[in-house]
């Protein structure tokens, strides 16, 4: 359903990667590997339309993503290196607002439930700045629980998480893939997710 052909990315003066081709179907997971600076983040940003490739095409259900634009945005959820949470807002405010910005307004109860599930029970009303790094990451990841998008693009979702939280995320991904979702992700850590098909893409 997501089809990538001959993708090339140029940053500065040198080409980071070229001739990337893959097709991702419902229920499939694509894991992008590579050392620091090999272009993983650049690829993910291109996939969700934040950056333009130097060459190549990306199709979603047969349409080029640059022609779909906002329609495409409503089927993807991208979580980047940065958390996108505001230090001065509480966890629950952050979750509600980031969902609303993603075009998916949720009520407090649902947000409360999601935070509870992510192990933040009792901390919903604290400003995020007093939370630890791992807890902040959990606030970000809580969005995955309440969003209803098909394609998840996750850049190092496991960073700063402890083992319990890593398990939680793995189960979340499995459930999403079982329901016919798709996931593109990078990680330097080991992860085991039972998907219909796990593809790997190695950048150098």
């Amino acid at each position, binding site marked *: 359903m997501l089809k990538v052909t001959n993708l090339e990315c140029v940053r500065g003066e040198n080409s980071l990667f070229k001739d990337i081709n893959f097709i991702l179907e419902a229920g499939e997971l694509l894991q992008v590997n590579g050392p620091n600076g090999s272009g993983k983040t650049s690829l993910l940003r291109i996939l969700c339309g934040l950056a333009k490739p130097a060459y190549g095409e990306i199709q979603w259900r047969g349409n080029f993503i640059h022609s779909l634009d906002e329609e495409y945005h409503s089927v993807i959820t991208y979580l980047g290196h940065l958390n996108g949470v505001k230090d001065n807002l509480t966890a629950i405010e952050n979750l509600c607002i980031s969902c609303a910005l993603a075009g998916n307004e949720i009520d407090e109860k649902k947000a409360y439930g999601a935070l509870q599930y992510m192990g933040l029970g009792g901390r919903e*009303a604290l400003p995020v700045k007093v939370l630890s790094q791992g807890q902040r990451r959990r606030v970000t990841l809580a969005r995955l629980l309440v969003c209803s998008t098909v394609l998840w693009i996750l850049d190092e979702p496991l960073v700063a998480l402890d083992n319990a939280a890593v398990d939680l995320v793995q189960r979340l991904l499995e459930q999403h893939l079982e329901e016919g979702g798709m996931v593109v992700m990078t990680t330097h850590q080991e992860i085991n997710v039972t998907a219909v098909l796990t593809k790997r893409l190695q950048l150098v």
Partner: protein
Amino acid sequence: MNWASWSDFFAMGGYGFYVWGSYLVFLLCIIGEIVLIINRRRTLHKQLSLIHKATKQEMSNETTP
């Protein structure tokens, strides 16, 4: 006693607006400052008790299983 009547008192010899304008703002400032401090204290206490509860919950979670 300087004032013949209450209206005399409020008129302040024709300068009522200026005198009462000053005193009123003085009062408002004082009340405002106290309210702000009490508010700040209350939100802080709320936060502290939330943290306290959360840590206590965690501690009991760790010890029980």
